[in-house]
């Protein structure tokens, strides 16, 4: 349904730099004000119920620890298929996101569920490895059945002004992905300014990203409302220019239903309602899911169940 329009490879770092630095500036105070204004939107009753179910369907249920095991991944997969064992009407999540060596386990555990397997790749989270290693990482994950690849950009190269290197890496990884969708992690917490967030968003989009993603979850700040807002503006403007739709994935720091709903309000009013779809907006999270389920149960029954009524996986 979505089609990215990969722009022609830039002729030189200079040409790419001229394009990125020619984008209109971002006023940080204005962005903060707009985000704060949208945070006052009141989403209640039927709208809240719809928002919660949508948010559940947008979750990329994630485990990215050194201590991950096949057992942990299988437990997560079970949670992804049926998030609320007590309530079969709770929809499954969008994807399970794991390290590349656990893709095969996840694929097996999710077979037939409709839940996709996403894998981080390219020397996640630092991205500090030779390109060959990053590509090998990617190819292996795809070969094992990952439908989505979450790559990290080389922030060092970006901050040093070597945009061409970042561009070439994304293009190479995109090629290695084949049919798999590519999410490009900008690690906005390391880019420091919203001007950089806008430039990195455009760089990734033009190089072939299907999604642009805020963070690895390993760096703070992660998915701040201001960052997500600027990225949503970028995909919206890209659509206005080219007609192609690129997705956005905030990850890290979205823990409560209120956070998730505020993100959906921004999607609705900044990018547009067509982005209110798991194909174009994902939320990378782990603890968020149980809060969504708890709020969902409360809306249905009128009472808050205790945390022990939801599974920890």
């Amino acid at each position, binding site marked *: *349904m979505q*089609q990215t329009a990969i722009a022609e490879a830039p002729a030189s770092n200079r040409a790419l730099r001229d394009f990125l630095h020619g984008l*209109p*500036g*971002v*006023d940080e*105070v*204005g*962005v903060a*004000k*707009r985000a704060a204004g949208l945070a*006052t*939107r*009141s*989403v*209640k*009753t*039927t*709208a*809240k119920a*719809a*928002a919660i179910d*949508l948010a559940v369907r947008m979750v990329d249920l994630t485990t990215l620890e050194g201590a991950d095991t096949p057992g942990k991944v299988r437990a997560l997969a079970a949670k992804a298929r049926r998030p609320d064992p007590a309530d079969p009407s709770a929809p499954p999540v969008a994807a399970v996101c794991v390290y590349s060596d656990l893709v095969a386990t996840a694929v097996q555990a999710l077979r037939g569920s409709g839940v996709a397997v996403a894998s981080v790749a390219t020397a996640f989270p630092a991205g500090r490895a030779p390109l060959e290693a990053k590509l090998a990482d990617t190819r292996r994950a795809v070969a094992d059945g990952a439908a989505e690849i979450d790559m990290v950009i080389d922030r060092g190269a970006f901050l040093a002004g070597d945009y061409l290197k970042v561009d070439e890496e994304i293009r190479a990884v995109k090629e290695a992905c084949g049919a798999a969708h590519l999410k490009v992690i900008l690690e906005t917490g390391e880019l420091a300014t919203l001007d950089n967030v806008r430039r990195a968003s455009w760089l990734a989009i033009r190089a072939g990203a299907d999604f642009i993603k805020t963070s690895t979850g390993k760096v703070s700040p992660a998915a701040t409302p201001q960052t997500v807002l600027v990225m949503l*503006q970028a995909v919206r403007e890209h*659509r*206005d*220019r080219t*007609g*192609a*739709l690129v997705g956005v994935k905030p990850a890290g720091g979205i823990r409560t239903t209120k956070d998730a709903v505020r993100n*959906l*309000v921004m999607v*609705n*009013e900044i990018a*547009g*309602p*067509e982005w*209110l*779809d798991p194909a174009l907006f994902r939320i990378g999270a782990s603890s968020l899911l149980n809060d969504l389920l708890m709020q969902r149960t409360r809306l249905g029954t009128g009472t808050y169940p205790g945390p022990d009524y939801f599974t920890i996986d």
Partner: protein
Amino acid sequence: MDGRPPAGGADAGAPRTGSPLEYAPAPESRAQVVLEPGYEPFIDGEFAPAKTGEYLTTWNPATGEPLAEVAVCGEADVDRAVAAARRAYETVWRDMPGAERGKYLFRIARIIQERSREIAVLETLDNGKPIKETRDADVPLAAAHFFYHAGWADKLAYAGLGRDPRPVGVCAQVVPWNFPLLMLAWKIAPALAAGNTAVLKPAETTPLSALLFAEICREADLPPGVVNIVTGAGETGRLLVGHPGADKVAFTGSTGVGRGIARAVAGTGKRLTLELGGKGANIVYDDAAVDQAVEGVVTGIFFNQGHVCCAGSRLLLQESIAEEFLDRLRDRVSLLRLGDPLDKNTDIGAINSAAQLERIRELAAAGEAEGAEAWTAPCALPERGNWFPPTVFTGVTQAHRIAREEIFGPVLSVLTFRTPDEAVAKANNTPYGLSAGVWTEKGSRMLWTAQRLRAGVVWSNTFNEFDPASPFGGYKESGYGREGGRHGLEAYLG
């Protein structure tokens, strides 16, 4: 391709419908507000019937329902109020130590905060502005004004106005309907902090929050006569500002009425400050942060339905970015939610009165008749009440009435310019001089422009930001004197 045309194509401006996230109605409860059927003026610490026996009705502009009957004060009532203020000035307030006066102001500020939800709902009912604005702007800013001036009460010797500045006396204050409680706070807080007493007349269409404020004064145990509220229409206002017992007149409102007051006060020895109309320019250079500039332009003209004297009602766009900017502007304006002012998701509320609606319609019609092109946000208007959709006029020239006259409604006039000199010349080419906004990422151009603008407030990459510490006031026909900050105290100290 999904076949969608880019912004500015066929669907630009169409409302985004069919969203999976249609906001359900989220009305603020009216339960906190208990309306009396009738209200009397607040004089010498008491609510007592006006001598005239006349009443006027205040309406909810969003529904057309009557809210309450409010007394019309006549000569005898104004006399009584001024006499009470004089007595309180001479016997209690003038000579009270500043620190003690400050305590009363702190108390008032805290009660405003405690009763904020009630005040916000009442203001929204009486005025028609969205609850999110009364809740997030009017009421917190009013409280902030009292807190700020409470702090000044015992520090007046450090205001740079002499070693022992003295109060002026009895202040006659008349405020408009666009920010009823906030304008009251702008008037009463500095007057009281400096040791003056006040007789204030709220606007005839929005008297209820001032009467609630009178109740707050009682709750704060403010000595009787320090604050008096006389209600009524233009005639009551004339009686008040013309009263020989008033030492100082402060007025916020239209330039026409302000002129009349200046004439009435001339030669009487009374001190006068006027905060009048405006036709603020928002200058957007081609190197502006476009998305935030669009946002600022929208805030500048559509905040409070454009019923803002410092509204950015003229948009001056650099020609090289005009088309793209206007596409984005229309896109953004299409998202504004117009409707029930008590709904927490409403962005645009009702026009305060039928008379104001008529004036907006008349000027909008003149804009079209003079050749400007109108674009209106595609939003449905409620059947009852006073409503005007957000409107953007393009192709406006300096000669058009909609570029020169204050519309005081949700109507933006867009003009273009080619060079910074032309931008400044056009911005200043108005009888008014209250506010301006400048949008550029280039610091030197910002300063160059701001230095040349003849406006009391110049906002840099923002608009409609208010703070009690920042002086506010105008050049030329926008009035004289400043309100807020150290400068604002000057009007209330001898």
